[in-house]
């Protein structure tokens, strides 16, 4: 039933979408991580002036579909073209590429900030006090003690978020970006051979996810010297 000649014909076409998928995923995951870190740190200060807008942002982006967010940014903000042109941002919001990146970044930042907030909370108080008592400055404590422990705690949950983001890049195809899923959709509607295309495109995503999972497992190992056997 599965036709090897057809598979070898569509595989190169699907692979040509991988760079765009990776670009979208990596840019938004990196930018989203930085924003998530900022948001999580800002929430350490318990002032409601800071807390309320962040909570609202997080609730909005976690409670609504990513597709709505992409449409809101790509089509919705297009309505404010004169205003955006006046501040010189129209060039950015005109491009589906940057709109997709912005939507994905804000979305992952909302989820990521909750993961990191939980991770910061899980750093034991005593460890921080011990670092301060041994003469480390607050910044040094933060950089050498709090951050590594929090990151280590966050890796499994953040790994899930990264996988979700790689899958989320597929929605960029709906605003005309031809990444792997967009190309797959084109091939399916041309050939009506949904199963073969699904197998090929699916395999590409599974391999990407597998590589990410292995890389994160390596990172977790590197950040957990206390769990390793003594050399």
């Amino acid at each position, binding site marked *: 039933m599965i036709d090897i000649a057809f598979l070898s014909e569509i595989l190169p076409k699907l692979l040509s979408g991988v760079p765009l998928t990776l670009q979208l995923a990596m840019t938004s995951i990196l930018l989203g991580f930085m924003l998530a870190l900022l948001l999580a740190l800002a929430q350490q200060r318990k002032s409601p002036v800071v807390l309320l807008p962040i909570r609202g942002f997080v*609730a*909005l982006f976690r*409670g*609504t*579909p*990513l*597709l*709505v*967010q992409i*449409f*809101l940014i790509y*089509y*919705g*903000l*297009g*309505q*404010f073209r004169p205003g955006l042109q006046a501040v010189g941002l129209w060039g950015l919001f005109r491009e589906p590429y940057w709109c997709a990146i912005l939507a994905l970044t804000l979305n992952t930042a909302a989820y990521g900030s909750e993961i990191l907030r939980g991770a910061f909370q899980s750093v034991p108080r005593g460890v921080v006090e011990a670092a301060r008592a041994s003469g480390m400055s607050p910044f040094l404590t933060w950089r050498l003690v709090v951050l590594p422990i929090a990151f280590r705690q966050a890796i499994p949950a953040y790994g899930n978020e990264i*996988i979700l983001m790689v*899958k*989320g*890049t*597929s*929605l960029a*195809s*709906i605003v005309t970006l031809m990444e792997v*899923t967009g190309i*797959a*959709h084109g091939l*399916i*509607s041309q050939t*009506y*051979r*949904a*199963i073969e295309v*699904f197998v090929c*495109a*699916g395999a590409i*995503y*599974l391999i990407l*996810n597998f590589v990410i999972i292995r890389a994160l497992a390596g990172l977790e190992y590197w950040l957990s010297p206390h769990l390793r056997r003594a050399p």
Partner: protein
Amino acid sequence: MIEALRLLGFGEGGWAAALLLAAVVTLILSVLGFALGVVFGGVAATWRLGRSRILQFLANGYGTVFRGVPDLLTIYLMYYGGSVALTAVGHGFGWQGFIGLPTFATGVLALGVISGAYQAEVFRGAYLAIESGQSDAARALGLTRWASLRLVIIPQLLRHALPGIGNVWQLILKDSALISVIGLVELMRQAQIGAGSTREPFVFYIAAAMLYLAIASFTGIAFRHAEKQASRGTQEA
């Protein structure tokens, strides 16, 4: 601002009724997809916990594929693959034309397959969290297999599974927006239609976002209430 209120009102040229109706479609679509996912997830979890190597392998493969592949791709597979299969069956009965799959049924099926893959993990984890002494004790009390499952295992399974199940529900509710790509008029699609015909995309997508947020919040409260119900009589850690 006043223009936006008129567009989202119930009066002449207002879209409130259409959007609310579409939100109901989204809710029904998600509930049915989720319910189908309970069946798929339950079966897959049973297979993974069972002794048969072949069934374990199948259930593992199901979980890996549908949790690892973008949901949009799964939806395309169901829609186009289903239509092609249905047309082939139609040809067998002598029908010549192309048969498109009904979009609502496809949406439910796709959401069922996707949520089942996640729910299998939740159910499996919940089952493993029940101490093995519980079934031994039930047997020792003389309960039949079915009675021990119904009275001892399933109530505890639900308690452990509910938080995870709640997460899957939120995921599926948001995934249901993707069903708009195959043309089903649910909330997302209705917002697109409104945005297209009034040229006010911002107003309509904000309205859709608010309705999704409202459904997510209300059902979230319901799930927290259910969690409390299911864990009455246990101590919080």
